[in-house]
């Protein structure tokens, strides 16, 4: 799936990747790949700046630790981030239900007239 197709959904995807628990930047990318069966493969260069932007917005927070002599930055959801994920998820379910009703070949679409 191309990055352009995911435009507008990046923040929600990153918040969802962090929902199970804290992850470092590359683990977030791997989580998105694994969670989507490899279909979502975001450019690495977009994920790190997006995580920093979410931190500035107060939706995630980061902590530095040490790993194999390297500094590691791990991200986790804040309460505001969890609330934003809940809202995003509800909005997506409504949107996808509406699009599925229209694109799903008429199944479940109410007859007119």
């Amino acid at each position, binding site marked *: 799936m191309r990055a352009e197709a995911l435009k507008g959904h990046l923040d929600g995807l990153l918040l969802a990747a962090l929902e199970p628990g804290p992850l*470092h*930047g*590359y*683990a977030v990318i*791997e989580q998105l790949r694994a969670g989507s069966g490899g279909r979502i493969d975001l*450019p*690495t*260069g*977009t994920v*790190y*700046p997006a995580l*920093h*932007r979410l931190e*500035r*917005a*107060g939706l995630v927070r980061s902590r530095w630790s040490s*790993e*194999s*002599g*390297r*500094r*590691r*930055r791990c991200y986790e959801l804040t309460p505001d981030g969890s609330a934003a994920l809940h809202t995003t998820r509800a909005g997506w379910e409504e949107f996808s239900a509406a699009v599925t009703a229209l694109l799903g070949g008429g199944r479940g679409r109410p007859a007119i007239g």
Partner: protein
Amino acid sequence: MAARQSAEPAIAAYLDAVGQRLVGPRAPRQAILDELCDGLHEAAATHHRRGVPAAEAVAAALREFGSPPALAAGFAGELAVARARRTTLAYLATGPLIGLSWLSAIVPNRWWLRDPITLLHAIPVLPLIAVAAVAGMLVLAATGPIGSRLREPERHGLVGTLVIIAAASFGDVILLATAAHFVQPATQTVAAMAITASTARLTASATAMTQCLRSHRTLSPAG
């Protein structure tokens, strides 16, 4: 820096190439490089675990992260926000001190006991102070959590910061040019301090203006 020194040579070279293209305050630049260093090692280790030979795993990790210019460009907005916020905070922190030193030079004999309205009228660059203060509040809002809802907060932040720098510089030039007219013999010592502070800020403003304009050039065209 220590992490980069202990990195794989290819990763260290890649990070140097990225670092040369990052424009912004030193601390956030270093944090970005440290984070990328860890990410690249993790990516290489992941490829290696999947059966790719070690040397090729590093090359695959570097390919995955993209070209250094493209990767650095992704951080331009974040670094511009950091530049705008730090510069603005520096002006908001030092501005009142410089202002008070000028006030003490202009209005001797316990100015804090004077009528506030009379005192305000005694300040020769009051409109510039007001412009800088309002711009400062707007920059802090645009570069804080609220600003993340704005479109291009980095651009708004840098423009606001440039307004603050221009107002402070204009104010310093006016005060320095007219100091001889309003400084009284009794306040020569404090006036000397005010003149020194304004001269130092004027010099710092030239650097800050250059840094902000450089950060602005790294942002992709608006649209």
